[in-house]
């Protein structure tokens, strides 16, 4: 079992905050096994823009059965819980997949799931998620340089984000499912007054995985903070979950659903509204960059 294949997913956000995740269980299941298919996912697959005949694979469930087996470079138990409850997909996971399958021409929106601010510590925590559907296959999604899509410069009237992605070519991969590793470096300036800016930097590492050996229909991207003593960011995590839209299994059929979760815990310096606006702007920039890079 397990050979490799592709993966999908990707990307992460950068920005900073972190994400976390939980594990999903490790029960191994054949992709073709009927017992992996939930009634909810059948309904969703019925709406998929692909061949309704191949509803045999319950990708969300298969994803959750295998995500916890991956050897990762960061603890994502908190963030993973957004997608999986044990070896079963969460309602949020299924909702975002359903939204992606129903989208037309990339008309997706970001959801600010959490924006909490502690005035005592000046700390803000954000969870942002979105999903979209692209016609290219999961295998191709994994093959594309998603780290470049999310590291494009971004300038508005109030902020300036500079990003740099450097592949870790000399760094050994961790397993046959580990596809690539990239160092990410971000410099963010937020305009406060005409002459004063709020500057922050963060270094992350972005890794891409195939979720299950021999299954080219699923991929997982994880970006996590590597400078743990960063004074501005406590967490900066992005999870990218990608999988076949329901139309095929290792047979060249079907497009890809990509669900992304960003988790940031950061020092807002006493400006929570500014932090919230800036994070949302940056998340939108990342989401748009990903979609534009993968849409065809």
């Amino acid at each position, binding site marked *: 079992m397990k050979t490799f294949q592709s993966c999908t997913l990707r990307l992460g956000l950068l920005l900073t905050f972190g994400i976390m995740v939980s594990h999903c269980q490790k029960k191994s299941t054949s992709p073709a096994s009927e017992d992996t298919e939930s009634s909810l996912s059948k309904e969703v697959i019925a709406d998929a823009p692909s061949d309704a005949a191949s509803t045999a694979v319950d990708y969300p469930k298969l994803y959750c059965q295998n995500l916890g087996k991956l050897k990762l470079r960061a603890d994502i138990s908190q963030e993973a819980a957004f997608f999986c409850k044990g070896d079963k997909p969460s309602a949020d996971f299924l909702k975002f997949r359903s939204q992606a399958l129903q989208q037309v021409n990339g008309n997706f929106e970001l959801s600010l799931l959490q924006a909490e601010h502690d*005035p005592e510590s*000046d700390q803000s925590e954000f969870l942002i998620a979105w999903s979209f559907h692209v016609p290219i296959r999961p295998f191709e999604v994994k093959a594309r340089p998603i780290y470049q899509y999310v590291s494009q410069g971004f300038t508005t009237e109030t902020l300036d984000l500079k990003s740099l992605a450097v592949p870790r070519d000399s760094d050994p991969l961790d397993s046959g499912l580990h596809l690539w590793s990239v160092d990410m470096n971000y410099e963010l300036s937020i305009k*406060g*007054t*005409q*002459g*004063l*800016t*709020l*500057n922050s930097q963060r270094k992350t590492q972005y890794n891409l995985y195939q979720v299950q050996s021999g299954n080219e229909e699923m991929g997982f991207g994880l970006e996590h903070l590597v400078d743990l003593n960063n004074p501005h960011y406590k967490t900066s995590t992005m999870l990218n979950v990608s999988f076949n839209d329901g139309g095929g299994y290792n047979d060249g059929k079907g497009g890809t659903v990509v669900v992304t979760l960003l988790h940031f815990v950061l*020092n807002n*310096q*006493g*400006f*929570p*509204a*500014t932090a919230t606006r800036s994070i949302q702007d940056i998340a939108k920039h990342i989401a748009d960059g990903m979609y534009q890079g993968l849409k065809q």
Partner: protein
Amino acid sequence: MSITKISILGALASLSVIVGCSGKKFDGPKKEGSILGTENSTSSSTPGSPVIAVTVDNRPIEAVLCQDGPKVVANAKKSDFTGLFALICNGDNTSQLFKDAIVGAYQGQGEPQVKLIKSTSDDNYNTDIVFIQALKAPLANPSMFADLKPHDIFASGIHEINSDLVINVESRASFPGKRAVEQIGLKYSLTNANGAAIFDQRRTEFNTYLLVENNRDIVVSTEHLLDPETNINYHIANGLTIGLKAENGESYMVFLTELVIKNRIDPDRMKVTLLNLNAGVSKMLYKHISANAPR
């Protein structure tokens, strides 16, 4: 010589005012001192009503000052500024003292009014001085004040009627936290107090806050003594600087300073020195703003 007396400076720069801080409140025996300043207050305003017709966050700007100012400043935990806010606010409204300062704000003509509102001394040579002054300058909004780096102009010294004070900027940080847009470390060195050579130094921290996060029309700065326990010249050196948008592209800056000076046997010399230097500060700031503010 008379190295005695003196005290300090004041407000400086405005910006914040000075004052010290410390956690220690001086409460020795006091006796009333003379009031020296130019106390000409102008009371043309109507008691209780705002004198500035600007609203922020759907509230009169003066109400924002008195409702939000004490909270934002207290949350930063730099020093105790409640006594200074009590002088300029009565509940949600500004006090007559504040309104008078606004009405009498220096606008580049004549001499700045520096009002001494408290002056007490005790038998242990401690002197408690509080004064207020204001200016109205061509600033579209008061947050631009920080952009003009006003403290930098005092490095060459404030020289006013036989008194000399130098203020150097020792550090500067943008967005240090707690809604502050800037934090500046300052060193004051008063070398000549109304004709008497003295040694009088202190280090303070000046923080500027936005009271309403996304609004630049009202800012409050605090200044506090960094070494209140060990400073040989001051128990307290605290200041509040209030920046309020006015009409027609101008802004008010109000400077409130409290100094508790120790070991000065000639408090009157210090009062004269401070009042003169602070008048000089107002003139220098007005000139700097007028010449450098974006039009």
